[in-house]
């Protein structure tokens, strides 16, 4: 899913039940605002000038620290 193309209102409305909760209407606006910030961060990563990081191996289980 491309973070630049996502319809955030629609996504938030449909995604919450798939992960096990419904969003009370009083929280909807703030959850949408927070997800907008998340999508911006994902878009920044997506648009990296140096994309060689995409050639890194997919995250795999390693028994121990990542560094």
């Amino acid at each position, binding site marked *: 899913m491309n973070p630049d193309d996502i319809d955030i209102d629609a996504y938030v409305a449909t995604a919450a039940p798939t992960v096990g909760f419904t969003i009370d209407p009083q929280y909807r606006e703030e959850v949408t605002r927070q997800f907008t910030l998340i999508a911006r961060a994902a878009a920044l990563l997506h648009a990296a000038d140096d994309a060689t990081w995409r050639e890194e191996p997919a995250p795999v289980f390693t028994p121990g620290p*990542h560094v």
Partner: protein
Amino acid sequence: MTRRNDFAFRIAEAVARGEAKAAYVVEDSLARIAARDVDVGAFTEVLAERARRKAAAIDADRAARRVLRPLAGVPFAVKNLFDIEGWPTRAGSKINRERAPARRDGALVRKLEEAGAVLVGALNMGEYAYDFTGENAHDGPSRNPHDPTRMSGGSSGGSAAAVAAGFVPLSLASDTNGSIRVPSSFCGLFGLKPTYGRLSRAGTYPFVDSLDHLGPIARSVKDLALSYDAMQGADADDAACRPSSLALTAGELTRGADGLRIAVADDYFAHGGFPEAFAAVERVARALGAARRITLPEAARARAAAYLITASEGGALHRRQLAIRAADYDPDTRCRLMAGAMIPASWINDAQRFRRWFHDRALEAFREVDIIIAPATPFAAPKIGQKSFVLDGVEIPMRANIGIFTQPISFIGLPVVAVPAAASGEAPIGVQIIAAPWREDLALRVAFELEREGVSQAPVAAAFL
């Protein structure tokens, strides 16, 4: 004889020599907490009887001429996400107060007590550690002892406030994106965030398992080193804790910074802050003779990736509770966790790939230098409740942006000592002394050099002397 506002190592020396009784030191700490914590809000539990029993046992050992441990009689307190036997581990929340009491102390609490230190209480924190401010809707804010109208920093706000107020000389804290380094900066203290995997996290309430670190906050580098040395060691109860030999540091401090290649981080780390943040970096660089500049490429994207992983792992941890008890969360935490729980897996997969790439770039930089200096926070402590700040004419949200300089570093698990570096008479602000993985010793040596030269000092706040 009491040891009011003394460093931990001096207290331990005095107790070992028989110049001070552990019981007196602990009573003095308890008395100050009782008298003045109302002004700070650092403590959520005070463990007076437990502390008195431990202190009495230390004094009995001394009377029997048994050899005392390196932190004998040193009062300390822990962020309330550490397990304490007999108490629910609240992690700054309302919900966790209903948990069963912990059956034993967290691993690092046990190690510090085995080294002779005396636990006196549990400390206020941002809910579930998702915080840079030190504010908490359930317990109230932990206030900055240097100016109680200002933030202590978070999420380990109580851990810094308790030390800056002189209630204890040493505290334990956690750091996922900056939660040791930010409060250390705002409260003018030394804080150590070790390499990811160095210290056991067993017996603590998690936030983001792949980013969580634990470490000490203190008013002297020697106190950091002594406590860090006492807490090292593999632990099968934490899958991330690396089985490695001890790398003791306290005896190495006096080697100072001689021979170390030190550079100032430029590019991303030279923008986005107020003048006092960069003035502090230059003050430290001048003292160390560090003229060189170095770039950690794509640090802004590293922060973005850390933000995604934090939101996703944190949201996943709380997903079930959010479904049934959303109203019981701190309003500043709840909706961020909800949004994080819905992040598509492909975005996290990208963030993890980027993490590996950025880690390799950092290792390349550390082939050129031994130490990298960067700001700890973009400004000194803001007012409690402040929601935004203006930089270069642009209004920027406060809460998420306090950690802009810390997040890219903890993202790849590098060890950091936060050192106080404000100009004389100015509000506290800190600088990050960053080393290559597993080289806490180098960061501590540089911090000690700055302390020895008088560039970095961490006095008890004047109103609490």
